[in-house]
């Protein structure tokens, strides 16, 4: 595929998605909002897994932390201003990622996977066992964040399509941001670290600092997704931090094809839709309750037979591998 098409394709897709509210289906609009939020989450993880070579199995920590941040900051029964609460939630996540990053980045490989998981579980138990965030029941958010300019309401996020558009704009923004970052000298260095960390160090790159920067950015963007998810559902509970969340987002990244940003978006679409289909009682009756069985088998099959994900399928038909494509 030529690179010009690759450059405009995201905008085409975004344009089509922007028209989606014309369909006027509450169910599908909510579903698509969820998909886009998960796409942001998956892109943030792809930065780590696909571009920095760090397999985190605790990414839900940052997603959930931002969810709790907005829920705890919001005054009861009143709206909270998006202008400061979104940056604040992202900032909290960036800070937490910076702190945990300095610890987990002392380890590699299997250790790294276990330690990231352990830290996310630490957060899970903090919110589960203490009263800070309402324990295992969680907290309700009674109103969507507000977007006012002075006294003027710019966008009423209580309206489904407005919230959807906000999420869409942020998804595109995150895509463009990461695209830009990955094409920079910083992004090239990250890819170099993924391919051959040892040589990067021998060339004089302070590898740890690069990884920490990537880890922090990744955590911050996962926070953005978590903030939006909490705002969409109107409540948070410890499940938002659970390792199933971490597993699901990792699955999205692999399913779409790691190391390709658009793959994360495709993966989020595919995963959320699959989840929706498998758990659809109208189609599968009472056995829909056990949809995780089918999902588990599906995940195992992907791990065994589709290591490059859906993006890898298209590469089999003549597309260039990632590292080469990065050279364009």
């Amino acid at each position, binding site marked *: 595929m030529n690179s010009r098409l690759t450059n405009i394709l995201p905008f085409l897709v975004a344009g089509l998605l922007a028209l989606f509210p014309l369909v006027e289906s509450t169910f599908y609009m909510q579903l698509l909002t969820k998909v886009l939020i998960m796409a942001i989450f998956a892109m943030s993880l792809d930065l780590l*897994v696909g571009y920095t070579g760090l*397999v985190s*199995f605790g990414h839900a920590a940052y997603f959930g932390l931002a969810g709790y941040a907005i829920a705890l900051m919001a005054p009861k029964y009143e709206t909270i201003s998006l202008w400061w609460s979104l940056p604040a939630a992202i900032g909290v996540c960036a800070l937490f990622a910076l702190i945990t990053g300095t*610890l*987990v980045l*002392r*380890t590699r*490989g*299997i*250790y790294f*996977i*276990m*330690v990231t*998981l*352990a*830290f996310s*579980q*630490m957060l899970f*138990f*903090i919110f*589960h*066992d*203490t009263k800070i965030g309402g324990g295992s029941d969680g907290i309700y958010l009674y109103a969507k964040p507000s977007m006012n300019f002075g006294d003027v309401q710019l966008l009423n996020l209580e309206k489904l399509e407005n919230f959807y558009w906000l999420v869409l704009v942020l998804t595109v923004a995150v895509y463009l941001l990461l695209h830009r970052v990955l094409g920079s000298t910083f992004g090239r260095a990250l890819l170099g670290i993924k391919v051959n960390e040892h040589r990067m160090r021998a060339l004089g790159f302070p590898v740890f600092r690069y990884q920490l920067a990537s880890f922090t950015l990744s955590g911050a963007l996962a926070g953005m997704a978590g903030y939006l998810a909490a705002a969409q559902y109107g409540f948070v509970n410890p499940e938002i931090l659970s*390792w199933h969340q971490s*597993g699901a987002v*990792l*699955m999205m990244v*692999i399913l779409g094809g790691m190391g390709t940003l658009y793959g994360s978006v495709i993966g989020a679409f595919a995963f959320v839709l699959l989840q929706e289909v498998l758990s659809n009682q109208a189609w599968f009756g009472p056995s829909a309750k*056990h949809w*995780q*069985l089918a*999902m*588990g*088998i*599906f*995940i*195992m099959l*992907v*791990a*065994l037979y589709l*290591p490059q994900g859906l993006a890898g399928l298209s590469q089999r038909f003549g597309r260039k591998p990632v590292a080469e494509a990065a050279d364009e």
Partner: protein
Amino acid sequence: MDFAFFLIQLLNGLQYGLLLFLVASGLTLVFGIMGIINLAHGSFYMVGAYLAWSLSSLTGSLTAAILLAIPLTVILGMGLERLLFRHLYQRDHLYQVLLTYGLILVFEELRSLIWGDDVHGVAVPALLNASIPLTDNLSYPVYRLAISGVCLLLAAGLYFLIQKTRLGMMIRAGASNREMVQSLGIDIKLIYTLVFALGIALAAFAGMINAPLSSVFPNMGSQVLIICFVVVVIGGIGSVKGAMAASLMIGLAETFGQVLVPEVAGMIVYVLMAVVLVWRPEGLFGRG
């Protein structure tokens, strides 16, 4: 805190730590020797507990249930190694994580289909259903002591197996040099199958003997798994000695934490892990 109370907590901490060791030692052996990260390890703990519950309600005896369940878990372990895990040895950890994560979901749903989602209690064997009085109103259950004793026996057996036997020598050689072992004509595949089955049987056995204390409930495996990850990180990957030290450390820290500072008890193990990561990222007994 008077002495009897302290003694009880000490024994509880040791018992919990020894139980953790059973699960963690299998995990660390599989990590160290086969280079596999197995998230589903905790599921075998759960399977053990559910087998203990269902077989003991069938036979009316926990001992009989355990004797029946052990060969079942060994067969399960060998079968899974042949069917699934064998394809993962040369693969990136990422895919090991995914596959074993998928396996957890499958195990949980199968558990739900076969045994349901209720919590069940398991009776302590009559022979061990007694308490040793310590003071007028404090006593210590014999069953907990029995668990500790069995765990210690198994730990000693494991040490003997790895350090003194021919199989153990092969296991140790396999960990350090796969090609060398293969060139000596030793069947590394068989060793891997055996080690994997051993690890799984240990985890399942821990679930069985602990069932009367913890009862059996959905998702009971993941809690244990994550604590065992912390054990392996602190002890050092592949080090059975490290797993023992870290298990006891965590068992005691968590038990005393719950008594002395209940509000932050859940965090103590993670703080311990963070300290070890700063001080010795490769773990206390890691190869560095």
